[in-house]
């Protein structure tokens, strides 16, 4: 089975478990506060995943190291390439 198939299968299982508990005939048997937590659970998981993604992006942005020498070397290469192409006749 492909990865997409696995993910969809997992989502379908979790979704049907949630639907059975939250919307289905088992309703009255779940204690009321648990029911109140259970109903928004998919949206809560989505928001939690969004927060995790945002935090990961922010953390990696903050801890990514600048490479000064590599940047200088790259600018050198760019300058050399421009001079070479200009010499061969390409107009910028």
């Amino acid at each position, binding site marked *: 089975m492909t990865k997409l198939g696995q993910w969809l299968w997992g989502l379908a299982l979790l979704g049907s478990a949630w639907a059975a508990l939250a919307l289905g005939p088992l309703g009255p048997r779940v204690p009321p506060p648990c029911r109140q937590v259970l109903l928004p659970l998919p949206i809560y998981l989505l928001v939690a995943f969004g*927060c995790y993604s945002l935090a990961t992006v922010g953390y990696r942005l903050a801890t990514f190291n600048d490479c000064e020498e590599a940047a200088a070397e790259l600018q050198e290469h760019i300058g050399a390439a421009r001079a070479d192409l200009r010499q061969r006749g390409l107009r910028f």
Partner: protein
Amino acid sequence: MATATDQVVGFGLVAFSLVLFVYYTVWIVILPFIDSDHGIHQYFLPREYAVIIPVVAGLLLLLFIGIFIAIVMWKNRKPAKKLD
């Protein structure tokens, strides 16, 4: 080391998402188990908004992405060739 701006923005994002996560978790998961006469409930909107606000925010996000794509595609359209 990343530049100072990068660090400020990055850690700002981390702090913001942490605050958001904690607030939303307390709102959804913890409040139902607290008696309704406790003082903490005054800091939280009614629970319907815990569903409405993320849904509306998601729709707005999709709207902006769609508008952005439309603008970029509009700018990149090539004029139709004129036949002599």
